[in-house]
């Protein structure tokens, strides 16, 4: 009986700990910087981008069909906004033991095939995505550079139609970044979308 009780207490503790950890950032929080390996072998941190007005951080991968559906749109975001001071930083959060299709080699291959112009980093020890609170791919965090650090301004989906870019009515990420660039308030700071759970 005592053992069972101890086990129960332990289980409860573990459950609470997981909940606390998986909450991640809310709008207005300061996002952590990181030092992650890029597909070119170099490490990349937010602090490398001295002149960035902000960042479009995208947790994404090779193997999730939703992430694949958004690949071209992620590249288009970087093409449009890197030069305006909001580069895309893509981070692959999956455990590659569980998802060999997301290995560094596979990431390099995919980036080459698709001609990615943004850093495609690997969260190799899976320590960064829980801090952000990312739960799935793709999962976007728009950050604005401030004196206090990068402030989370938007969390969620890229737009409102994963199936067909031509049928998109609301471009959530573009609206957020455009508003931040022109220093005006914007309405939608958080959206939800179906995605593939990050593989542990």
């Amino acid at each position, binding site marked *: 009986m005592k053992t069972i009780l101890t086990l129960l207490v332990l289980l409860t503790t573990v459950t609470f700990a997981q909940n606390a950890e998986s909450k991640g950032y809310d709008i207005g929080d300061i996002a952590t910087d990181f030092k992650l390996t890029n597909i070119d072998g170099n490490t990349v941190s937010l602090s490398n981008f001295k002149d960035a007005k902000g960042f479009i951080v995208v947790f994404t991968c090779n193997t*999730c*069909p939703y992430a694949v559906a958004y690949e071209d749109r992620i590249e288009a975001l970087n093409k449009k906004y890197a030069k305006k001071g909001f580069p895309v930083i893509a981070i692959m959060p999956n455990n590659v033991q569980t998802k060999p299709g997301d290995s560094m080699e596979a990431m390099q291959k995919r980036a080459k095939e698709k001609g990615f112009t943004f850093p495609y980093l690997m969260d190799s020890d899976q320590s960064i995505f829980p801090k952000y609170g990312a739960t*799935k791919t793709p999962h976007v965090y728009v950050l604005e550079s401030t004196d206090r650090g990068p402030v989370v301004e938007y969390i969620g989906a890229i737009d409102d139609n*994963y199936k067909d870019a031509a049928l998109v009515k609301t471009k959530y990420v573009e609206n957020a970044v455009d508003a931040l660039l022109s220093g005006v308030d914007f309405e939608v700071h958080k*959206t939800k979308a*179906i*995605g593939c*759970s990050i593989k542990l």
Partner: protein
Amino acid sequence: MKYLFVFVILFSVSCKSEKKGTVELEVLDFNGFTHYLEFNDSKTYVVNFWATWCAPCVKELPHFEMLQSKYKDSVEVILVSLDFPHQYDTKLVPFIQKHDLKSKIVVLDDPDMNSWIPKVDPQWDGAIPVTLIYNTSKRLFYSRTFSYQELEAELKTFLL
């Protein structure tokens, strides 16, 4: 030679059914689907959101099937597929046939996900699998996977 029967339901342009072999898919947008979340009778409904591309979903599907077969009279399991429309014929239908799924299957196809995910449950962030269990006296949303034992234990709290 394959035959594809498309039944156009005149009452709703958003609702369509496709029959292929022995599997008839009920494909709905969220408006067409919501009634599956709102049954108001003596049964307990176990609504699982899954997709053939989601490995943890596929792993726990047999547990929902087993639950349905064991609790035929008091429980209705509804498996809500979030598969991609272009994979209905190539992935979803073959999967249903191969695993001979017996539970009720509906296919939710509504790309404006931010508009309907919070209506299923405000806690849902969009990752799958998730499961909603409800009856007239209780309603709980689970953002987790289940072993059969866990699922049955959870169900029993609804059948008290």
